[in-house]
């Protein structure tokens, strides 16, 4: 079974609500289990919030486009934005083994995405960041 869907959000934090409504339908339609649902939703929230916060620094009228596909038990989602170039694959991970005293609060978003997805790829094309994430949902 394959199914493609597109969702377009404005670069405002409130738009996450539309993403959540969309995901609810998508998860139901494809009957994903709790673990996969959480992994996908959490990753998309982190990616979306980062784009709004850092990619556009509060500029609200930009568009972020999500392409969804579920094929042979692999959910593939690509996220396109025209914020400043940013490749999350090249970032060093956070210090998650430091003692509490010295541990920084924050810096977990990208790590959560990388840890929960089975595959990530990034390209900059036509002045856009295109991040593609894949999750094996069998």
């Amino acid at each position: 079974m394959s199914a493609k869907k597109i969702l377009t959000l404005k670069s405002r934090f409130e738009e996450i609500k539309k993403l959540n409504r969309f995901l609810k339908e998508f998860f139901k339609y494809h009957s994903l289990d709790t673990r996969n649902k959480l992994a996908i939703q959490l990753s998309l929230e982190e990616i979306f919030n980062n784009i709004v916060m850092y990619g556009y620094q509060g500029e609200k009228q930009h568009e972020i486009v999500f392409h969804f596909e579920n094929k042979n038990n692999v959910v593939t989602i690509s996220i396109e934005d025209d914020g400043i170039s940013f490749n999350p694959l090249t970032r060093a991970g956070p210090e998650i083994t430091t003692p509490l005293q010295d541990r920084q609060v924050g810096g977990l978003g990208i790590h959560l995405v990388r840890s929960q997805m089975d595959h990530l790829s990034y390209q900059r094309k036509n002045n856009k960041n295109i991040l593609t994430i894949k999750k094996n949902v069998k």
Partner: protein
Amino acid sequence: MQISEEKVGSVLVISVSGRVEMFTSPRLKETILSHINKGEYHLLFDLSELDYISSPGLGVLLYTAKTLQDKKGKMILCSLKAHIHEVFKICGFEKVLPIYKTREEALKVFK
């Protein structure tokens, strides 16, 4: 997100249910800090009904843990759903925050 509190001996049990994300986590932070400011330094978070948590919520828990460590208090988590436990593991929270299976086990640790 719903928050409810219950005092068990010297321990304040804070139950957090539903979704903790960018829009709800500020309220969680305020609630927690108001308890700490009133002198509650023994906090047990019962997360049995927590369905979802993203980085702003994880930040609140880490900040609370740091604050309580500074004050020589104690913070423990219990009753996490499997998929939430997974998220905490990924973030390395197990290293800095004791996590127990049940509320009973966790309460014993404060004794």
